[in-house]
């Protein structure tokens, strides 16, 4: 038995994003980034380069960061997708977001959603990273404003905030 292949015209997909199921009708060539932004209106993840070079499109897929610009939406069925829109708990920002505000971890803000998702994933896997581990974990996110020192300080501060919350 062979299954027919899907496409090239639009096909129905169910995407699990930030804990909700979304039914979309999209072509197999569509990237996760374009579906998030154009079909679901989740415009937090940004299109910077579209080539896996900048990190503005970073989302968390099944607990690990991924470039949404290099990922096909059709490859994400049955996976948990998290975007920056899903980080708030009620009216509270995520500690990483709090820390970026407190430490001036951004200037124009274009790279920030991607930076936040990388930082969140880093701290989920490694709650107490060293500065070198922060640099390594965040290396896939470019900031054209060059806010790097403050981004690194923000991630370190977020780690402390989260440790304090855990206590």
């Amino acid at each position: 038995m062979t299954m027919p292949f899907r496409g090239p015209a639009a096909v129905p997909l169910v995407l699990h994003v930030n804990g909700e199921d979304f039914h979309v009708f999209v072509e197999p060539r569509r990237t996760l980034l374009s579906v998030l932004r154009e079909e679901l209106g989740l415009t937090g993840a940004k299109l910077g380069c579209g080539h896996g070079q900048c990190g503005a499109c970073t989302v968390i897929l099944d607990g690990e960061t991924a470039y949404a610009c290099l990922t096909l939406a059709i490859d994400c069925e049955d996976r948990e997708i998290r975007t920056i829109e899903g980080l708030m708990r009620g009216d509270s920002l995520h500690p990483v977001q709090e820390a970026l505000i407190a430490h001036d971890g951004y200037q124009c803000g274009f790279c920030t959603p991607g930076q936040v998702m990388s930082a969140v994933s880093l701290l989920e896997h490694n709650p107490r990273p060293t500065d070198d581990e922060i640099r390594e974990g965040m290396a896939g996110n470019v900031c054209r404003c060059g806010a790097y020192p403050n981004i690194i300080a923000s991630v370190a501060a977020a780690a402390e905030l989260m440790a304090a919350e855990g206590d």
Partner: protein
Amino acid sequence: MRAFNYCRPTSYGEAFHWLAGADQLVVPVAGATDLIPRIRDGLLRPDVVLDIKDLPDMRALTPTDGRLTSGEGVPPGLYVGAAVRMNELARSELVSSRWGVLAMAAASMGNEQVRNRATIGGNICTASPAADTAPALYVLEAAVCIKGPDGDRTVAIADFFAGPRKNALHRGELVVGLTIPQPPEGSIGHFEKLSRRKAGDLSIVSVAALAVRTDAGYRWRLALGAVGPTPLRSPESEAILSESLTDEAIDRAAASAYGCCCPISDIRSGLEYRQAMVINLTRHAIHAVMAQMPTP
């Protein structure tokens, strides 16, 4: 990006049915980190993209009691499914236990986002001379397991790389995984790469060194990436190092490595810089291995 069909077979029968389609370009995909940019840039125009990640054993990462080597009470080899991702290799205790040079190469690739998606099968099938897992797989003398409509075959990693972006696959075949013999206890490996940025860029030069423990001492293996049409071994350097590890021998080994290369100038580096860096990186890798040798 041009439109295409997508399928995600769960059996090889189904996969080969699609791959045999005569009038269509059917292209396998795993992590898509190479493929999507190529399709987007119009370098490749597939009719069908065939996702291999759900095929049996594509994600396996297990010890083998293989035909390749044997040992007492320890797993004699490693099987790595083609869809195993770089971060899985980099973070696996099993891989680090004996195949550390592969874990180091995987950890050096791209950045976190890329390593979470990029697979070892995709890395070798792209057959870039700069594929970072390649020098590690060359010194480990890995074998590539290939499946096709007419059956299975195995190809030595050094025969799998056929030229820039050319691999040894025949039409309609898939790489299903790699078998990697287990180096004897006490063997020491190291991987080193040089790139324009520390993260997210291909190698200008990469070197893998493996000192294989023998009764008499060490037998050395040395492989280089990004300095020829395929990754390559430097047999002369290997012979020199297996004989002696004096400063003079190391200089000669590094010079021989330089002699093996036929690098090109490209966007990442000029020819002369690349040549100079072959010598430096080879020396670094040798010293890094020696630093881990037990003092007599």
